[in-house]
């Protein structure tokens, strides 16, 4: 099971995270992705695979060389 599909709890609020649409903005471009989010404090859990994978690739594609 992918990390973002497991059940997670917010360590501060002790709330179960729920999948919500999250907006990422980088160099003037905005992208959405559904990620586990704390319903109380709105903190977002970004799995390592996403950070090292899609997010890193988007950064590389957008950075001017």
């Amino acid at each position, binding site marked *: 099971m992918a990390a973002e599909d497991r059940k997670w709890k917010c360590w501060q609020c002790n709330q179960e995270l729920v999948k919500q649409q999250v907006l990422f903005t980088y160099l*003037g471009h905005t*992208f959405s992705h559904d990620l586990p989010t704390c319903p109380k404090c709105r903190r977002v859990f970004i799995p390592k695979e996403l950070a090292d994978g899609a997010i890193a690739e988007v950064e590389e*594609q*957008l950075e*001017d*060389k």
Partner: protein
Amino acid sequence: MRKILRKTYSVCPVCLKRIPADHVALGNKIYLEKSCPEHGSFSTIIWHGLRDLESWRGNLPEIAEGENENCPHACGLCPEHQQDTCCVLLEVTKRCNLRCTFCFAQGGDGEDIPFATVRSHLFALADPGKTLVQLSGGEPTVRDDLPQIVAAAKEAGCQYVQLNTNGIRLAQDQEFVKELAQAGLSFVFMQFDGTNDDIYRRLRGQDLFALKKQAIEHCALFNLGVTLVPTLVPGVNTDEIGNLIRFAVAHAPAVRGVHFQPVSYFGRIPALPSEAERFTLDQLLAAIEAQAGELVPQDSILPSRCDHPLCGFHGDYIVMNDKTLYPLRRKEENCCCQPTTAEQNRAFVARRWQRPQAEAALSSDQENPSLAGDEIETLEGFLRRIRSHSFTLTAMAFQDAGNLDLERLRRCSLHVFANGRFVPFCAYYLTKQG
């Protein structure tokens, strides 16, 4: 009102001796002026004042006293050269199946370089895992063993193998295209001067438009990206710039972009150029604005940062399903950019000019109306689209003995491999005028 804006060095167009030169403003126009003690004074238009030259160039320094004193005659990269090699050009033949009015390489009836020699050159020039080699000529596709040369380039460790071609054989010989693709060819730079045969008759001596389209189709069959390369000649095809961009966008993703080359007067040229026969970089920028209109936002075209800003530009886009261009970069986000390395530039151009693997291309090429427009708003949608439908507008303003500016030459990253040395392109093909 005559005003000296900048000091640099150039060469005498007659004897090619290194001489001081000035950028001189006369009204809105800017000229490169220089005097040879033996052959007199020369003046060449370099900018029409259609864009602000200072802001386009940025804060690059002038050539200081005592710098680059052996440039360009000791060329074959010296410690004072300011840029590494981004792309290496290797001539594999002097033969050509066209007799163009303009040709930097004076291709014609020459000879092929023996395969063993080409192979040894490839091993000498390759920096394994990095090199982008351009197989050039003459016309490389006149060689039946070109697929073996491509394979040798890959064996030598070249990461990317680019073919510079007029496309005739790619149109006429589908099996040959297949062999090139199977040998590991990365992408194709195809001479493509316009979208009607009048242009080809005037520049290339025969009708070629149908062949160009056929060549693109054949490359698409084998997942080879094609970048269109027009030579822009005033009075012939400078009013064709908008059509070239629209044609390229319409044929994306098989076509990966347009690489404009304003005419330079070296190699085989019809005559010494008058001011009206030159097409400066700011004229090209203005022509794109006038002819492509909303398709190409002007602030999406940025000065070269790998080479000198006066040597070219790049615009980076995604082609959308409705055949509009989504710009990836705008000027205001890049106001403080520093020069980039040749390695960064090579990775960038290769990422854009190469098509993704066949499986990825198959799934993303299917124009799915449900994904139109907003599909790039998700991380996955954006990545899917940019992998398959990236598109560039680039330009390279080659220099000749008339407008050679050593401040520009010392930042050149396109190098010809010859006699065991890497020689900046415009130094290698420098030709005496008159």
